């Protein structure tokens, strides 16, 4: 069994990995840049090693420094977390060549899944559906019509030489197709001097649904059901849930089998995720495989009860999977909201800075995975995600209500965060009813970005509080009731005490 793990990462995921290591009795080594001396992962780990200046390219991304740190500390394994070097095949090789365990799949698996074309080909061979489309240029109208018929409506016609929307046509039915092809071709000709096109299935209301898999080195591969990740802003997930509101038992079984087949096709080992695009008819298409832990892994942990980091470590230690497929079921419903240090009302502009006050939600069915604390200054150099709130409910409705309650309890002062924005999402009827796809944020702009409506009283209270804070800062009410630490009798007693020892 692994005895000491170096975590080649920072932020919430480093802290989260350390927690599982502690529960397993495994020692941990943190690495940190100049900007991270005060970061929580440095404080929580058993050991911590400095690896360079603030920019990732000079610290967290420098393979030699990470490996050197592992050598210095005597770590027998490296956990890469997500991001940084986690999907770098060369790093996996370097680590293993040093005789250190890399907690992740083989570099070969990383390489095959890291290249979109090779991944698409392997999936097709493994019988996993990919988004249908022509993969060669078409110039002939008849050929184009035939391709469309093979693919099925709706389709998107795109100029081969295209870009910027020129020569693009969305076709919903056969009666439109001839006209669409000819006009696309002529626009393409006019724009690029090339009238060839290619045709792809158009996924009109897509869902991003992914399957978590676990595989050991003995050929045992299981899936841990799906995560629905369609709520995105700027192509980044912000709310995830499991089960997916659109999932059926038979589709879960089918997609789960495909996910296992996908993992098996590259001899996958460890924890990985197969991402699919699912259309409104519940057709699904392979998108990509993430060969590492996902940000949103906690919702799977909550409904299946499986600690995914512990399983990663056990698999990397050469153990057999402790679970078979029949052990895995989803109990209840879990939602994750990602808290970013950003200003949603200002085009999601990053908002690093000093955390002046933080109050985290607690109670039944609430998990918070974060890394910032009161007095911590979030550096400008890294990802703006500062924490994740995960709620669980016996039903989806309960999980949503619990999330709303938790976001209400969550206060972070000093920087802008996405907490209020997420709270608004939880109040949109379509979200509450589970009727959404990847267009959700866009569709509900008005409700999500609208200015606040509140009773006039609230503004008055805010002004009054500012006034009292001002008074206190000015020392005007120093001995008044607003003074935090001591009630009056206590002050009295303390004074007596003091006098006694001095008289």
């Amino acid at each position, binding site marked *: 069994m692994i005895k000491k793990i170096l975590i080649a990462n920072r932020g919430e995921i480093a802290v989260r990995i350390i927690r599982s290591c502690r529960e397993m009795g495994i020692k941990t080594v943190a690495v940190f840049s100049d900007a991270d001396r005060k970061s929580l992962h440095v404080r929580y780990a058993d050991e911590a090693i400095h690896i360079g200046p603030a920019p990732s390219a000079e610290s967290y991304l420098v393979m030699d420094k990470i490996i050197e740190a592992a050598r210095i500390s005597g770590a027998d394994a490296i956990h890469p977390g997500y991001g940084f070097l986690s999907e770098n095949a060369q790093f996996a090789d370097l680590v293993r060549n040093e005789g250190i365990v890399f907690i992740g799949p083989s570099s070969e698996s990383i390489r095959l899944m890291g290249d979109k074309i090779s991944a698409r080909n392997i999936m097709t061979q493994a019988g996993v559906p990919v988004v249908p489309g022509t993969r060669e240029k078409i110039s002939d109208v008849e050929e184009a019509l035939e391709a469309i018929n093979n693919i099925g409506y709706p389709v998107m016609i795109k100029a081969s030489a295209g870009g910027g929307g020129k020569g693009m046509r969305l076709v919903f039915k056969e009666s439109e197709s001839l006209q669409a092809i000819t006009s696309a071709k002529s626009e393409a000709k006019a724009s690029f001097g090339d009238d060839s096109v290619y045709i792809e299935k158009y996924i009109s209301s897509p869902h991003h649904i992914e399957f978590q898999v676990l595989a050991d080195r003995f050929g045992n591969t299981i899936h841990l059901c799906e995560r629905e990740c369609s709520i995105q802003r700027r192509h980044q997930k912000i709310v995830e849930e499991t089960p997916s509101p659109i999932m059926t038992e038979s589709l879960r079984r089918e997609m789960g089998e495909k996910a296992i087949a996908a993992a098996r096709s590259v001899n996958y080992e460890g924890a990985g995720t197969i991402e699919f695009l699912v259309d409104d008819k519940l057709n699904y298409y392979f998108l990509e495989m993430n060969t590492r832990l996902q940000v949103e892994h906690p919702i799977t942990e909550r409904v299946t009860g499986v600690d995914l980091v512990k399983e990663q470590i056990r698999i990397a230690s050469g153990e057999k999977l402790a679970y078979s497929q029949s052990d895995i079921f989803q109990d209840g419903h879990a939602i994750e909201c990602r808290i970013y*240090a*950003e200003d949603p009302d*200002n085009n999601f*502009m*990053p*908002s*690093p*800075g000093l955390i*002046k*006050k933080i*109050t985290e939600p607690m109670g039944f069915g609430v998990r918070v995975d974060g890394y910032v604390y009161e007095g911590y200054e979030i550096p*400008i*150099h*890294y*990802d*703006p995600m500062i924490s994740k709130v995960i709620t669980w409910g016996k039903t989806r409705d309960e999980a949503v209500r619990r999330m709303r309650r938790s976001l*209400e309890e969550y*206060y972070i*002062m*000093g920087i802008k965060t996405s*907490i*209020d924005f997420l*709270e*608004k999402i939880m109040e949109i009827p379509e979200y509450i009813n589970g009727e959404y796809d990847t267009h959700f944020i866009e569709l509900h702009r008005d409700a999500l970005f609208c200015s*606040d409506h*509140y009773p006039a*009283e*609230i*503004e*008055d*209270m*805010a*002004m*009054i*509080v*500012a*006034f*009292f*804070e*001002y008074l*206190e*800062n000015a020392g005007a009410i120093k001995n*008044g*009731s*607003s*003074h*935090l630490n001591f009630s009056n009798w206590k002050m009295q007693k303390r004074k007596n005490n003091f006098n006694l020892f001095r008289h």
Partner: protein
Amino acid sequence: MSAIQLRTGDRTESIEILEQTGNKVKLRLGEKEYQLDIVKVEKNIFSLLLGNKSYNIEVVSSGKKNTFSVKYICHSFNVQIIDAETRYMQNRLKASGEDGVNIISSPMPGKIVKVMVKPGDKVIAGQIVITVSAMKMESEYKSGKSGIVKEVMVSEGDIVDANAPLIVLE
């Protein structure tokens, strides 16, 4: 007029404490009178009881003198306290004509990636003058007004705070 005034958004109100016994305060805000129980429970957090209603309100300094960011659940307010000193400073600035200075400042902390102007350049409102990067995202900033660049206060590669002055126009 020597009373203290509070400003949030476009609204300015005078405030006056009429009575105070321990936590219990009677005060006038603009035209309205409030009778409330107000107590600072934690650093940056006040608990208010108005009638029986319980409010838990967080407040921190906004960085500018006498200006506070206040938050109640998802509602945020920026409140400026206008006391005698503030008024004096404002009047002095007005008298010296210095409030006419146009400063383009950084809306977020970050690293200066590119400065597109130099002293003496003419800029027009809406022109992109600087690029700042933070948390793996680059943002371009435009000048709000037209004018001549008097001073560029930062260089490429500099790390700046939010609200740090970047460019002075005249």
